[in-house]
């Protein structure tokens, strides 16, 4: 019972913070809200008892990715003077229709479909040992390919962002 109450608190916080990311007037506030929103999803992983994913979510997303985004925000700041720019373009009403329609469809499906199995069953705990065995033994080749992908992407990012001669 206590878990359920906690779940609802964290879910409401996650939704509110995500709405803050999308609707906030200041880009810097959006980035701060994003940290909270990602931490909220990490808390959901704790409720689903996947320890490793929750750790990765807090460290990689809450730490590394948001720092990267904040740095990019500061590097691409327009002049602090002058009127604040409109946050949304003229396409915002259509975006609201697209987002709202998708939300209606997804929620309808999620609630209407009768999922097989005991969906109210308590999820079993997934320890870091189980997770590492699956990651390094059963899914070894994809793991190596993912690390090569990361290496190539980061080298490419450095080449793209590099200051060239005579620029």
């Amino acid at each position: 019972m206590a878990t359920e109450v906690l779940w609802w608190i964290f879910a409401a916080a996650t939704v509110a913070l995500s709405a803050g990311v999308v609707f906030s007037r200041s880009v810097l506030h959006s980035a701060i809200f994003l940290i909270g929103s990602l931490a909220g999803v990490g808390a959901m992983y704790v409720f689903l008892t996947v320890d490793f994913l929750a750790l990765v979510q807090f460290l990689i997303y809450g730490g590394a990715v948001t720092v990267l985004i904040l740095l990019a925000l500061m590097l691409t700041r327009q002049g602090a003077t002058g009127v604040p720019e409109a946050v949304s373009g003229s396409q915002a009403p259509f975006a609201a229709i697209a987002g709202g329609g998708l939300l209606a469809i997804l929620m309808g499906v999620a609630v209407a479909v009768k999922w097989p199995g005991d969906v109210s069953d308590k999820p079993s705990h997934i320890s870091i040992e189980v997770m590492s065995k699956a990651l390094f033994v059963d899914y070894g080749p994809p793991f190596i390919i993912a690390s090569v992908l990361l290496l190539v992407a980061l080298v490419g990012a450095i080449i793209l962002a590099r200051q060239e001669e005579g620029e």
Partner: protein
Amino acid sequence: MVPLENYLVLSAILFSLGVYGVLARRNAVLVLMAVELMLNAVSLNFVAFAAYLDPDKITGAIFAVFVITVAAAEVGLALAIIIRMFRNSATANVDEVAQLKW
């Protein structure tokens, strides 16, 4: 225990907010943040389905690890492109970067 539907509805809300953000916002970095929201919603869906319906309970979590990896690579590249774009045209507004349009 919280039923599966709650997780599905939560991730649907996050995903729809992300769709709205990608379509409506004008700052390129904010578009990227909305994409991150969508990716997170998808990983949450994977993990929730695996925890409740998969007998192994592990496949969804593995999938989420790879989603996070690809998302990290994507953020790095996208921010490099945005910085490049800002250097070339002094704007981070996606509506003003239309050199490829003719």
